[in-house]
């Protein structure tokens, strides 16, 4: 039962995100419903459930892990998305904006519940694409240039991450976070390098202030604390 609800909850933002294009009149309400759904789901997760793991597609497939930590992060994601939506409610945004917002919301949710390096990679890249489209929403030359830099640097950084992930696989025959315990130092260094750059933390994050600081959109500002730092979300899970 809870498995089915969880899968539906993960898939729904993407389905709704694309169907906003089919029913553009209801875009804001759809997006609000998705944010509300995440809030309700996370409260349910925090309220009643013990941590559980979901394995899809056999042992080399996607593993999802739900515990208290991811519950709090999902709650935060739902609240932040809801706040952005309420802020933009009467600002005449196009359906495209709401589509990207909902897809970004879904990708962030996926980041919070994945338990292996490759699912994390896919989710982070999905976030990168949606974030680029939101940064360049105004289509001014400045926002385009800033968005290009963001996409280029984060994509390059994620290649280092990918090399590290493959080294982890070589050492432990699995992409699960637990494989980091037996991984060589180079793998951990490469994964750290990728996530530090993507997350914009200290030295490797010096490129970052410009994409974030100068947007007319509220969304990057609201989210700069979230979709940047969530690159670091897996570390507590990996260390335990």
């Amino acid at each position, binding site marked *: 039962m809870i498995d089915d609800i969880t899968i539906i909850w993960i898939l729904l933002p993407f389905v709704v995100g694309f169907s906003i294009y089919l029913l553009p009149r209801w875009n804001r309400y759809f997006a609000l419903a998705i944010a509300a759904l995440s809030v309700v789901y996370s409260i349910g997760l925090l309220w009643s459930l013990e941590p559980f793991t979901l394995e899809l*597609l056999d042992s080399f497939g996607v593993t999802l892990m739900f515990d208290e930590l991811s519950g709090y992060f999902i709650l935060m994601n739902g609240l932040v998305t809801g706040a952005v939506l309420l802020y933009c409610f009467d600002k005449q945004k196009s359906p495209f904006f709401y589509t990207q917002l909902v897809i970004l919301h879904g990708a962030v949710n996926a980041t919070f519940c994945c338990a292996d390096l490759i699912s994390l990679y896919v989710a982070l890249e999905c976030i990168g*694409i949606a974030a680029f489209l939101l940064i360049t929403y105004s289509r001014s*030359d400045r926002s385009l*240039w800033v968005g290009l830099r963001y996409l*280029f640097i984060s994509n390059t950084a994620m*290649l280092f991450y990918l090399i590290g*992930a*493959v080294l982890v*696989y070589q050492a432990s025959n699995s992409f699960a976070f637990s494989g980091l315990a037996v991984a060589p130092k180079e793998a951990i260094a490469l994964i750290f390098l990728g996530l530090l750059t993507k997350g914009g933390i200290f030295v490797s994050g010096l490129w970052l202030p*410009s994409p974030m600081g100068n947007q007319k959109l509220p969304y990057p500002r609201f989210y700069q604390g979230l979709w940047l730092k969530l690159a670091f979300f897996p570390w507590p899970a990996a260390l335990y």
Partner: protein
Amino acid sequence: MCLPTGKPLRKVCRCRKSLLGDCHQGHPPLGRREFSHVDVYARSLCVCSNLHWVFRHHFQKKSDYENPGHGCDEYRGDRVLHSRGGPWGIFAPIVDADQGAIAYADPVPQAVILTAIVIGFSIQALMLVGVMKLSRDNPTLETSEIEKSHTP
């Protein structure tokens, strides 16, 4: 003259006259092959049933098709290589079980690299669109100039 093309469902004529629209054998001209409604419905039904199959099997949870006698044994990768696909026929067998242990390329990293390539391509396409839009005002695409005028 008309050239037969293998065994098509419908005869399509490739003669010069046919291109002009009046083949002496009465074949439909090339490039104007007409499909009946039944044809179109049958084909879309095929596509739908394929999609249905993909969805059904890709969203099966592990417990649903893990059963004994599934051909999975000692070492990793065997499930992918040896299995006859469980009850559903999901995995194509790469090595026959009676061949024993032989060297093989692990398919998991290959799948991962393929994923990364697809994502990389999509991101490059997105960046290309951005560059094309930037090039309207900066036709030389000189980054130092763009930096000067567009860095906040």
